[in-house]
């Protein structure tokens, strides 16, 4: 509403969202690994509890994971798993 449709607009398509999720997950995974954690255990803990204390603040990983909604993250992971298998 009230937007100027004459200007160029950027639409986020599903594929791009998936790419963002993958990129963020990879960065978070790497940061956790570098800090000596079991990354899968930590990310599972985050998805279950929603508490960013599971994710290290190293390399901005905690802020990165906050960019993803947990339900969308889980949806992406499930979709990817089903499609890949």
């Amino acid at each position: 509403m009230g937007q100027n449709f004459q200007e160029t607009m950027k639409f986020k398509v599903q594929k791009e969202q998936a790419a963002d999720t993958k990129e963020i997950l990879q960065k978070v995974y790497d940061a956790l690994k570098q800090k000596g954690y079991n990354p899968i255990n930590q990310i599972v803990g985050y998805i279950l509890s929603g508490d960013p204390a599971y994710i290290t603040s190293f390399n901005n990983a905690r802020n990165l994971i906050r960019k993803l909604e947990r339900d969308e993250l889980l949806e992406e992971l499930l979709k990817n798993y089903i499609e890949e298998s």
Partner: protein
Amino acid sequence: MSGFIIEGGSKLSGTVKISSAKNAVLPVIAASLLTEADCIIEDAPELEDVRVMKEVLMSLGAKVSCESKSIKINAAPINSFEAPYDLVRKMRASFLVMGPLLARKGKARISMPGGCAIGSRPIDLHLKGFASLGAEIELGHGFVEARCEKLRGATIYLDFPSVGATENIMMAAALAEGQTVVENAAKEPEIIDLANFLNSMGAHIRGAGTDLIKIEGVRELKGISYTVIPDRIETGTFLVAGAITGGNILLENVVSEHLKPVIAKLIECGAQIIEEPDGLRVIGDGRPLPSDVKTLPYPGFPTDMQAQIMAFLSLASGTSMIIETVFENRFMHVEELRRMGARIKIEGRSAVIEGVEKLSGAPVKATDLRAGAALILAGLAAEGTTTVMNAHHVERGYEDIAGKLSALGANIKKIE
């Protein structure tokens, strides 16, 4: 007797760095007993409770050294299984050495714990957990002893989601044989932090932060270097400090998700809370709007923030109500706030706060840790001079509170 002298009326501004969490660092120090290797706790807060916990470990025979703000612990030489009464009576959290001692030495004897006199906090759930893991429990006059050949995994249902019991059971079960399941576990962030610490040491713990925690016992744990999470109660206290003084402060080193109910209440009362890349900003403006608060276990409104929010609501433009559901004796600050002009009535576990336009400075005394913080906050907003006696209560849980508030422009100094 030491205290704080506060000249009220200054609007706080600037940036404050929140310290590591007291309630996270104490169990992590206790958990260092689970390994013979070195554990280093970085950026540990310099608090009275931390000092007591270090002494408890040293009394057991552990080597503890400090450099800058790091604590290095080596528990290889522990030669005692008894935490002395003089230390345990000072601090309730010293009971947290029981799980690790039992797991490492097969025996632990601890005096009945002390701590702030805010209500009855039984240790029966800790003992129920140890008994389920196969320990024999003996209750004597003022002490409790547990012994076992080998702890074995079990399913333990906690009648109440006790933070201390969840932590103690997690630590004991980390070295037990087989799988332990804790049902109705506490969900506090400090539980997750302890799980992170233990998992980094090689433990297998899943589900921390939910009400079902699974611990797969391992044979041994290794030493690590670790930094605990920021203190959510100190964060909440400084948020109220910004709001109550009509100030504008940025809090660094915070996890805002740990404070959702406090942030929601402050916004409801008219304060602005803004998430910034470097932290959380609070902007206070005028008298707060009235609001009702009910304390609950996490993720509800924390009982550890009840006194501070009461100080804030005592200046609201209307009537508020606080219901304390966690502890039965946690309104001791009310009498002191009344001395400063607050209008508060107590009925059982409820407090009705009729907001006043101004509080006035008065000599008051901290009856416990959070009560002391609330009185300091009231003093910051009051007209005139407030003297908060019994600084030692406040120093149990707030690192250099006078220094941090002074740096934000408050007129506060500590007196010995």
